[in-house]
């Protein structure tokens, strides 16, 4: 890396604090001198520490693992922590909060509530009445290695919410479960430890708020930061549901 002249970046950020009476949403500009390897995480912290200590945003792991920092970056939903400023040659970066979630303030939204509701709705846990009675001193139940790998493949979702913010169906249909919920359900449906029947899965997603409501625009597939196979799973679930309540 050379020490060439660093660019000055312009950030245009939506500012709005719903808890302050009379506050209205507005875009504010901040200038930041770019550093090598700078991410949106680094830039936003610099803005907070040096220019405006009131600005709200969420980061936890800052390594693309926890899913906290979804926001709209120049029109696209992304994880801010692993988005490099160098990806924006014009040097102008516009940041908006993720749509479809309750706004806490500025770039911070409440994904936690939505994800907990999703988990409750799809009953995101192993359904096995015997699970609590297993003898922990004995060998664990065996699983074919490729089955374990397939489950992990679908379990890599980090609940960042980018799929929901990129989903046109969700925009029109508030109760639409969305890709995050389908992926979770697909994950349990291929897990031999989960004893739910096809019928039980059908009851959760076999309607227009479930997998039949999807308009197949596949924003979820385009923007999933973990490259999860949403398109395949939605198709798989539809087929499974349509083939009958097995």
């Amino acid at each position, binding site marked *: *890396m050379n*020490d060439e002249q660093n660019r000055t970046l312009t950030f245009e950020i939506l500012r709005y*604090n719903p*808890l*302050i009476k009379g506050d209205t949403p507005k875009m504010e500009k901040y200038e930041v001198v770019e550093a*090598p*390897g700078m*991410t949106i995480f680094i830039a936003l912290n610099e803005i*907070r520490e040096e220019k405006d*200590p*009131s*600005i*709200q945003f969420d*980061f*936890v*792991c*800052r*390594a*693309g*693992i*926890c*899913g*906290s920092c979804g926001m709209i970056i120049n029109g696209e939903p992304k994880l801010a922590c*692993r988005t*490099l400023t160098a990806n924006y040659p014009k040097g102008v970066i516009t940041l908006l909060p993720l749509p479809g979630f309750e706004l*806490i303030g500025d770039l*911070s939204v409440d*994904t*936690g*509530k939505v*994800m*907990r509701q999703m*988990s409750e709705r799809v*009953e*995101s*846990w*192993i359904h*096995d009445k015997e*699970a*609590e009675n*297993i003898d*922990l001193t*004995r*060998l*664990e*139940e*065996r*699983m*074919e*290695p490729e089955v*374990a*790998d397939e489950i*992990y493949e679908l*379990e*890599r979702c*980090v*609940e960042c919410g980018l799929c929901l913010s990129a989903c046109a169906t969700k925009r029109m249909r508030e109760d639409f479960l969305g890709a995050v919920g389908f992926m979770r359900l697909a994950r349990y449906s291929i*897990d031999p*430890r*989960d004893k739910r029947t096809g019928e039980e899965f059908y009851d959760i997603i076999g309607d227009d708020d479930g997998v039949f409501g999807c308009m197949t625009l596949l924003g979820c597939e385009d923007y999933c930061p973990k490259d999860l196979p949403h398109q395949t799973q939605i198709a798989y679930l539809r087929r499974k549901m349509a083939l009958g309540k097995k």
Partner: protein
Amino acid sequence: MKVIYTDSLVIGGGLAGLRVAIAAKQRGYDTIVLSLIPAKRSHSAAAQGGMQASLGASIKGVGDDEDVHFGDTVRGSDWGCDQDVARAFVNTAPKAIRQLTAWGVPWSRVQRGDRQVVINGEKVTITESDDAHGLINSRDFGGTKKWRTCYTSDGTGHTMLYAMDNKAIELKIPVHERKEAIALIHEEGVCKGAIVRDLITGKLIAYVAKATTIATGGYGRIYSVSTNSVISEGIGTAIALETGLSPLGNMEAVQFHPTAIVPVGILTTEGCRGDGGLLLDKDGYRFMPDYEPDKKELASRDVVSRRMIEHMRKGKGVSSRYGDHLWLDITLLGEKHIRKNLREVDEICQYFLGIDPVKEYIPVRPTQHYSMGGIKTNFKGESIGLKGLFSVGEAACWDMHGFNRLGGNSVAETVVAGMLVGEYVADHCEATPLKIDTKTIESFLEQEKVKISDLLDRDKGENPFTLKKEMQKIMMDDVGIFRNHDDLAKAVEELKILNQKAKNIALRNKISSSNPELVEAIRVPKMIKLAQCVAYGALLRKESRGAHAREDFPQRNDKDWLKRTLATWKNEDADLPEIDYEPLDIMKMELPPASRGYGNDSTIAHPDTEKREKEIEKILKDNPGIDRIQTQETLNPVEIPERYQGKNERVGRGFK
């Protein structure tokens, strides 16, 4: 005054906290978890490489058992751990992992037949047995005699946390998100809950409980570069310290992980080296065998980190604008392995470094990673100074890690300690009626209200972000991997000044609701106190043990220093903690002190060591024919809750 009553209050929604909450809930107690963030975003999710449990299914794990795991853990701790706790831990780890299996973790499984692995830089074919097919697989990690680290690709923490939080959701355990505990409520030496600030509305709420458990993780962020999440600021540990009653143990024991990427300090898992990755210098030379011919790249973390620094000090580092670094080479593992078993590492390299680890070396440097120190508890997880206060996971000094933690033993601790301590928390709820004078609640609430309004009212004063940066720089420069008297004394003096400045913080953004500057202003004075416990404890400890390496006292000194540091902050006006020591009793040790097997052993022995060795010899002679389990029960009887007792089965070996 808003007051919420519960039986079991858990502060922190990571693996350890959730596991305690589940235990209390399953025993029928009302429980509430407080979290700064949605629970699934906790730092537990960042644990990549795996969880140690001596299942011994993989061919390279055959012969493993609780005893081998125990020996590795004690040696890894440089004999600084509590051997009762380490013993209860290793005996329970196989049960914990099997329970998590039933709860849905998709552990990577053993595939029968041949597979190619990389050992010591060479491709080797190993053959897994038919019997082991489909059981939980394991990989090699540093400081272990067997391949014991069970894993899900390199997303182990993620899958464990998801299974755990999903279990909590199934049990309808409420997680109150975006809530920060800023003080503990206590009267007459008994903890009664916490004063909690709602990070959105700014309102203060008193949570009153029979048992309060702190599970807020480590304090890595007192350093400027850390692998830890940005929320790992040790605030839970600090509010225990601020009671003046609950001592913190071994705060100077801070682990630096050998392989975090430069400059941002994001971790690449130990699994990289466990799976065969190598450390190279600026000449592309593999240097670790020169320093540690036996364990090489897979020596304990503290050892590898020190060797890397030594090598860079010899001018062998790769220079960069961010200072010197070394290379981690995983190219020899091949594309298939990297994209499947090291995919987080792959993603991190692509996104943050713009490199492809299949073809290119990864720039790495030892970086702050883990806090062995924390709230000192007994084996039940209860604070040794404040009844009704429990702590678990990285926030606690339960003390199975002593002065150095083995890779794979931290997520293991969270779930094992969570299981065991959770039972004791439930016992406590059963045995303890909730009695509290409401005036006590009011007075604690009032105290925090006043502190916050002082912050908001002060016109001129210190900037909390600046204070934090200064503290982080002091810790980084003077309380790092290699330590010495002059640097540590300077750090202590500078932290004293910062502690004074921290009493005079003023804000630019004067609103009491959601306000990141106010959050910082509440946290920074607490963090400075923790930093001082680390620096001052390190200054006073005149020996080298595990991760605490003193250049001026390079020997481990069992004679004078086989003891645990206890830091208490009794006087709010003081700039230093009060330090006491708790001796470790060699005469009760199952494994008396010995060499760890790295470099030359220069340990200054304790007279009891030889005495205990002879005693053990005699006990074994007097009890001929006892098996390994009876031996352990004779030498080191430990209490484990009834439901988690019993021998563990292994494939090809049964319950022996």
